[in-house]
């Protein structure tokens, strides 16, 4: 049995009268690539926000590798929840490499005094992070962009940098929010390869995506969400062939 990485138990969240997460229970194992599909407003991104700590659940618990996940965003990132954003949220005045170097979980330069003292151990940690960043960029074929201001890159490459930055976290859980929106051609291939490699390395990956063929190519399983609830979990083929679910997704044919 592969190790369980992420577990959600009866997670509920409402904003006023709108239920955005309705008793969500979910389990992800090392090596899983789970697709999260459903119509707009189904609560897919909200689920990511609940796991990564942007929102706190009203009730329910979330565990990472058996440990209860609590606290704000930065604590959960340090526990090993890495995520990307649909709109990338890159640091727009900074270079690609600088964007990457904000990402390591262990960051000895967080203290201003330690950062200014520039000790040997700090310099070694920085050099190690730099090497790791360059290695991740090489895997994406983007090593040559390291010194470029990130918003000067083409859109597809910015999407890849968003994922690359999250990989600097090196946590067990990787949440990808619409990684393929606006990505095509060779960047599409790269994205697929990276996601596969990360899962093979023992990470639990969860992907919110509207590109069904991407999900089909990549995901072992998928979850269909609607109105904050998980309606069904199963193989991607089962879900896309279900008449009931496709009607929810695309609207009923006779509507």
């Amino acid at each position, binding site marked *: 049995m592969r190790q369980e990485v992420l577990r959600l138990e009866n997670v509920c969240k409402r904003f006023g009268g709108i239920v955005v997460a309705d008793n969500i229970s979910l389990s992800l194992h090392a090596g899983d690539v789970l697709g999260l599909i459903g119509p707009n407003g189904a609560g897919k991104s909200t689920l990511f926000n609940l796991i990564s700590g942007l929102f706190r659940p009203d009730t329910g618990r979330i565990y990472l590798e058996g440990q209860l996940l609590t606290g704000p965003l*930065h604590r959960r990132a340090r526990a090993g929840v890495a995520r990307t954003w649909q709109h990338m949220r890159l*640091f727009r005045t900074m270079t690609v490499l600088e964007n990457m170097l*904000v990402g*390591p979980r262990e960051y000895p330069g967080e203290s*201003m005094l330690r*950062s200014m003292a520039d000790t040997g151990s700090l310099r070694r940690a920085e050099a190690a992070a730099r090497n790791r960043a360059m290695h991740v960029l090489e895997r994406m074929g983007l090593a040559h962009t390291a010194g470029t201001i990130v918003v*000067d890159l083409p859109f597809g490459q910015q999407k890849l940098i968003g994922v690359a930055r999250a990989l600097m976290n090196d946590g067990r859980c990787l949440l990808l929010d619409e990684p393929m929106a606006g990505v095509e051609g060779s960047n599409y291939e790269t994205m697929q390869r990276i996601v596969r490699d990360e899962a093979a390395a023992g990470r639990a990956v969860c992907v919110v995506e509207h590109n069904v063929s991407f999900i089909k190519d990549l995901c072992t399983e998928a979850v269909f969400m609607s109105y904050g609830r998980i309606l069904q979990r199963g193989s991607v083929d089962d879900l896309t062939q279900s008449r009931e679910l496709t009607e929810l997704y695309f609207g009923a044919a006779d509507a």
Partner: protein
Amino acid sequence: MEYLASTGVLIGIYIILATSYNLIIGYGGLNTIAHPIFFALGAYTAALLGIDTGLPAVICIAAGIGVAVVASVALAVTTLRVSGDYLLIASLGFQLGLLQAVNNLDFTGGPAGLSNIPLTLGGPARGWLYLMITAALALVVIWLAQRSMAGPFGRAVRAMRDDEVACAALGRGPFAMKVVIFAFGCGAAGLAGGMYAYYYQYISPEQFNVAQSATILTMVVLGGLGTIWGPVIGAFVLVALPQAITFLQLPSSLVGPLQGLIFTSLVIVFLFLRPQGLVGTPVAGAAP
């Protein structure tokens, strides 16, 4: 020549103020306008200690820095959880409220201020001595700003400025970083205040009002937000310019409005034509 030295001291004090304000607003992206009040806290603490206890100036000025830091942490802990426009308003309230208190309390001398600050480093070379000390302190503040922003801490601070949520989601807690740069910047303003009080031997509330925020902000914007040398150049230009205008020998009824006109035009022209300031590199995606 004394005139040159005194202009130099003023430039040095403004370099400290503009550099520290730039750390907070330019690098940290924390929109506060309450910088003059920390300048005032440093000045008043140093002056009152000097007058009442006769302790050496170094100790009085150090105490001024301490009070500015403590007050800034108090403001930070209560208001830095909000950001953007809310912080701007909270800082405005802090600036106006505290200065109003200084203006009305007895022990601060009220609107008349404090004028009997002990003479320190007297003698014919006084101006030049102060110039050297202020210049050295300004260099130290510039060096500290450069050191702190060049390394991994500065990188995380700039990331927070660009996108606080994304930065937090990578593991960098924004709150601690905000408190630290705020305390550091305000402590430096306190240092500038202490130097100011001891050099001029006279302080009054109107020297620390909101107009002072505008002056320091103009220096930072003109020189270049988020750059090390921008605020330094801004301080030179904005101290030297009014002095140059007085050399034109215009009637005094014209000088005041003319200065206001030039300052305001400078800010508008720079924000439209060169938002990165004199020394900044153009920000990607900004208007050319």
